[in-house]
């Protein structure tokens, strides 16, 4: 998780210095696409996760004549969705691994395994590790999140090797699993949960559930303590009821008003301190730190002072820099949550808008759906669903659509939802990478 050192004056400051911070509304529509090669247009997609892989595929499906290049450093992508199930001992890492063969072989996407190092939004060029440059007519960014190192005192990259975040799936997830396995029975797993907004609002609580499940099988005397910077969280009532039902008092949650906000981390001693001076000793410490849009978005000049990327909802084109579309966790798309499901849905909207724009048509009217399933236990699933449309140029929830799992439900209903979760996972991975889990 190393990042290249950046020049002192970053692109974002430059753009802001020039007044671009104001707004860049429809500039994208002004410049007619100039196709160097006389083809149907070149689109570069950065990031091969939920948003990027979906965008690459749907661009090609929308117009096979487009030249689509996907830039992603890893040749195997591990999904965060279901990585909690790996921690719970329900799955192997291989079952959440996906590759890019289908995008390449079936859809004709050029897949380049490199990291985008810089973006020149004026010359419409992306430079990659290894020196290659890619020119684009339209650029799609789906870089996901980056950690705000040191935003939480004591939590830097070195601390993450001792107290993993595991908020990007891969080596961090394996490290956390190893630590859980190495922990003595009777120990405490402490999770530090962040304030909004962050990747996957129900994710911390699903993780706590899965760790509690693992403990119930292997370390019957171990505890889970969640220290939260919020007073309420996604599907709270459902999680709390499920925890009681399955795990008794194994999981303790301390919210913001109970002095749950951690303000200092001592990773070496696995100790954390809260805002009002309470110290908690962990045997395994999982810090889910404050986050921001992936740093390449800064290089493109599309982030605002919140660290996230404002977009035009109808097309997911940046409000700041023309011809750059940003999707997924990096964007400000509330009320849509930062979920894999939303990244996939937004990518389809951006792909349709780009296909239309390059053909000189206007973008179709979008709508989006989202369902977040969480597993409280192997046979105990809960969900929240939403439908979103444009209202007054902004994304709005459609009233009455979607909703939560019922608070009162039979074990059978919870078991069915756990199965739907697996069905959902298989379907979205199939849709995104074309690979079965």
């Amino acid at each position, binding site marked *: 998780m190393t990042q290249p050192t950046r020049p002192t004056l970053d692109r974002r400051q430059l753009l802001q210095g020039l007044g671009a911070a104001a707004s860049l509304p429809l500039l994208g529509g002004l410049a007619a696409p100039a196709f160097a090669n006389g083809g149907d247009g070149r689109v570069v997609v950065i990031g091969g996760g939920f948003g990027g892989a979906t965008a690459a595929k749907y661009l090609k499906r929308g117009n096979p004549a487009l030249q689509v290049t996907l830039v992603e450093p890893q040749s195997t992508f591990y999904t965060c969705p279901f990585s909690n199930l790996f921690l719970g001992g329900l799955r192997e890492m291989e079952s959440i691994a996906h590759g890019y063969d289908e995008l390449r072989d079936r859809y004709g996407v050029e897949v380049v395994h490199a990291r985008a190092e810089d973006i020149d939004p004026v010359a419409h060029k992306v430079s990659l590790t290894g020196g290659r440059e890619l020119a684009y007519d339209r650029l799609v960014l789906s870089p996901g999140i980056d950690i705000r190192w040191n935003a939480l005192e004591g939590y830097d990259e070195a601390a993450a090797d001792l107290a993993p975040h595991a908020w990007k799936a891969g080596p961090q997830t394996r490290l956390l699993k190893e630590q859980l396995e190495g922990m003595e029975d009777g120990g405490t797993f402490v999770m530090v949960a962040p304030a909004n907004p962050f990747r996957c609002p129900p994710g911390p609580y699903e993780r706590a559930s899965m760790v509690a499940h693992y403990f119930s099988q292997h370390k019957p005397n171990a505890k889970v303590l969640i220290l939260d910077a*919020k007073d309420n969280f*996604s599907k709270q009532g459902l999680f709390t009821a499920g925890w009681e039902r399955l795990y008794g008092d194994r999981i303790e949650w301390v919210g913001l008003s109970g002095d749950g906000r951690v303000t200092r981390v001592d990773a070496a001693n696995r100790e954390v301190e809260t805002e009002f001076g309470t110290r908690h000793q962990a045997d395994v410490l999982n810090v889910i730190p404050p986050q921001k849009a992936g740093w390449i978005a800064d290089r493109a000049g599309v982030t605002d002072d919140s660290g996230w990327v404002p977009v035009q909802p109808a097309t997911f084109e940046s409000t700041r820099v023309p011809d750059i579309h940003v999707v997924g966790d990096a964007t400000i798309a509330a009320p849509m*949550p930062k979920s894999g499901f939303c990244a996939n849905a937004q990518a389809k909207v951006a792909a349709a808008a780009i296909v239309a724009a390059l053909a000189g048509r206007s973008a179709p009217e979008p709508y989006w759906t989202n369902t977040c399933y969480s597993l409280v236990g192997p046979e105990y699933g809960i969900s*929240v669903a939403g439908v*979103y449309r444009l209202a007054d140029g902004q994304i*709005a929830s459609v009233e009455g659509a979607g*909703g939560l799992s019922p608070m009162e439900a039979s074990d059978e209903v919870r078991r069915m939802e756990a199965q739907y979760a697996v069905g959902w996972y298989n379907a979205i991975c199939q849709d995104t990478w074309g690979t079965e889990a």
Partner: protein
Amino acid sequence: MSYPSPLTTRLALAGALLFTAPPLLASDAWQRLEPARALVGDAVPEGDGLVLELPHVSEDGSAVPLTVRFEPVLEDDAIASIHLFATGNPYPEVAGFHFTEQAARPEVSTRVRLNESQRVVAVAVSREGRVWTSEREVRVTVSGCLIRGDEETPEALANPRVSLPDFRAGEPGEVRTLITHPMETGLREGPDGEVLPRYIIETFRVSLDGETAFEAELHPSVSANPYLRFYLTPQAEGEALFEWQDDSGERAEYRAELTLS
């Protein structure tokens, strides 16, 4: 790795992306608020100085973090109070903070309720009657994954918490306080469909050796379990008394011996 030189990029950008800054949004929302007009009186609000920090977009309108601070150092004058208003709430008054020489840095953080997307207004008044205003637009939208059911109501005035720094004489030190209280607005229905009566903490006061150093008046737009972060500038060692008083007449307190280093 090579980066384009900032200068080339700057020139190129200047050519390609030249925009004129939009006219400043009129910052006069305070004029539509009776209590804010009363504060401003005949004074003409001055420009920069009062800074209001709020997220542009909040995913949870029940507790939106807010910081307000007055930055310049005034000569022969000081900020006496800062007042917050939420223009789109049923009761726009949010809170008023009163500073003294023993709370000489005018900066406060708290958490507020915002009913809907709206403009939040701050008004600062100095001892000499000078006035500053500041405004911020906040979009409130409940994130899809955050929809939730009924929450538990916290027990009132239980567990006052205070975090104190190591004070140095004459220097502002950051203080944080937190207390449980439902801060019932008087607008919400309980589970039985009956409107729950208003029930809030109305005042919070810090006294240093019997003398008021910092005071806050709170309204229903302050979030449940009021949180306040502010600065004290104790001049001498002595006892600090923190008091919360609610509208049912109940009170909670916290005492600490202040030492200076």
